[in-house]
């Protein structure tokens, strides 16, 4: 089952003619996602080739939505244009906006996330791998071949670490309802709590895997949310137990500053909320299998 997108989602890609945009949109199409339109200003009406052949091109999202009824957008535009792209999608009536772009200025995202959230729009990212509902739709860059439909919901701040976990789950025959990468930036459109609420409400999701990392307090907020609102089992993992303070660990948001945001306090918070915390990634799938009785 799906929490944000499914086989009926009509997906639009902003920045479809860029290197990353074209490559990953091709994979989205190949995995069966209903990609209905591409937007690149100045390239409206042009024909695309290869895997993207037949996807109509538009100059603006407004035009694309009008012509195709797109309701989900996947954004691959360069960082300096990302804020504008999200606002364009929101203004055109897109309900779910997934921003893959990394390196977007934080001040842009303060403005943008507050604006789109106040309008009830779902924004995932930026700097995220997007999401996949195995057998339904893939919006972003999570490899479809490591996923399979099943009962586990996965939410994560990381990319490849998530793939590792998805791969391990799938290898054990444990499928996923949806996997969502919320991104590693300090200001995100969607946080753990938002996705946890969706998984809790989703009848198909039996168990939730939550992969956090150092920096910020979102894992602590998630733990409090789980304690208060989530009745399904949750398995957690926190990356960055060995990270030194004051250094940005690849993700702009992954930094321990002023002694805050350490893995140790996050793990304590998760455990206090009754969440089983894996010691290393391989252990996640083991714990899940145990909890699901497989």
């Amino acid at each position, binding site marked *: 089952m799906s929490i944000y997108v499914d086989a009926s989602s009509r997906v639009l890609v902003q920045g479809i003619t860029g290197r990353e945009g074209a*490559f*990953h949109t091709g994979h989205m199409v190949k995995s069966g996602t209903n990609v209905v339109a591409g937007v690149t200003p100045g390239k409206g009406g042009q024909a695309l080739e290869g895997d993207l052949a037949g996807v109509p091109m538009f100059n603006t999202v407004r035009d694309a939505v009008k012509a195709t009824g797109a309701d989900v957008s996947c954004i691959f535009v360069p*960082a*300096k244009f990302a804020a504008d792209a999200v606002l364009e999608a929101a203004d055109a009536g897109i309900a779910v906006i997934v921003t893959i772009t990394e390196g*977007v*200025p*934080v*001040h842009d*995202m*303060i*403005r943008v*996330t*507050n*604006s789109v*959230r*106040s309008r009830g729009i779902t924004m995932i990212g930026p700097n995220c791998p997007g999401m996949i509902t195995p057998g339904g739709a893939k919006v972003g*860059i999570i*490899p479809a071949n*490591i996923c399979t439909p099943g009962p586990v919901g996965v939410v*994560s*701040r*990381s*990319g*490849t*670490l*998530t*793939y*590792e976990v998805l*791969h391990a789950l799938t290898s054990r025959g444990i499928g996923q309802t949806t996997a969502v990468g919320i991104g590693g930036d*300090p*200001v995100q459109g969607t946080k753990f709590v938002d996705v946890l609420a969706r998984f809790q409400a989703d009848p198909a999701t039996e168990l939730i895997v939550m992969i956090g*990392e*150092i*920096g910020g*307090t*979102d894992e602590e*907020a998630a733990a409090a949310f789980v304690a208060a609102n989530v009745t399904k089992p949750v398995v957690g993992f926190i*990356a*960055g*137990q*060995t*990270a*030194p303070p*004051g*250094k*940005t*660990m*690849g*993700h*702009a*948001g*992954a930094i321990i500053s*002023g*002694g805050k945001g350490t*893995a140790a306090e996050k793990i304590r918070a998760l455990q206090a909320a009754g969440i089983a915390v894996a*010691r*290393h*990634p*391989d*252990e996640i799938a083991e714990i899940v299998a145990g909890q699901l009785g497989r």
Partner: protein
Amino acid sequence: MDLFEYQAKRLFGAHGIPVKLGEVARTPDEARAAAERIGCPVVVKAQVLTGGRGKAGGVKLAATPDDAAEKARTILGLDIKGHTVKLVLVDPAVDIATEIYVAITLDRAARRALIMASAEGGMDIEQVAVEKPEAIVRVHIDPAVGLQPYQLRQLAFGIGLPAPHHAAFADLVTRLHNVFEAADATLAEVNPLILTTAGEMLALDGKVTVDASALYRQGALAADRYDGDLTDAERAARDAGLNYVDLDGSIGCLVNGAGLAMASMDVIKLFGGEPANFLDIGGGAQADKVEKALRIILADARVKAVLINIFGGITRGDEVARGIVAALGNIATDVPFVVRIVGTNAEAAQTILADAKLHSGATLAEAAQKAVQLAAERGAA
């Protein structure tokens, strides 16, 4: 990107915040000359990108130019929390009547800028937050409407500032917010903000952190970027477009993706080893980038084993494998490699690596354990 005090105060001054900025000196002689021009007494302050310099002896009052040179001599070269002092700021001394704290920071959880003020200026604000949380007044800035006059009143009344200083305080905080916005800052702090015995309001010390993602539109600040605290390896990694952080251990790590890289370090530690670095080659790295990354790792003499952990997605296993083969061919090393490549083109990678003398692991845990064992065999602590 953190700014030095002198850079922060220069930025403050450019936005009309009252500062008394002296001169930067690299040597005791420069400090003496600066003190002569400024007029004594002066304060000689270590310029380091870390806190706690006062306790470390990095801030000293000087009564004469010769004294300033002497104080600079004791401060330059100091090691403060791993940062070597290479610069001092020679500032005119002022008579302090009151010390206030004010800062604008990014509140990630609220997705908003947060202004914090306290009458407990000069102190470590994190200590105040723990010991006397009610002494910190907080206001969030709604990006839809920006900083509002009522918020300045909340701060001024909240910290009990006497009414005659409200206007100057409101003006200063407004300008500090301008700095925060204009510089794409995630922190703009004045601590202490002082009232002199003559009733003048001054930003005595400043701390500014600029969002690295926004440097493309921060021409002047980006040009002024200081990287003297980077290790050679970190500088080389930055030039190669790699996410790299130097650590103290013995096991070099090469991973694609930041979360997986951190997790790989954690697993090394879990099995009793110590990672020598964090290294994320990013998404879609080609062979030459992988080779560069291995050069950086192997240049570190402490490295006793290398763990390569690749989950192919955008990144193709065969490209990584080619990079490994090139590195092994071009760099003379006897450090053992443990290589785990899964995902996209993993089979092709195995083929490419078939002839190389490498260790492997099916899972991350297995690979990490192997690396720890190999490093230990080679004398890692």
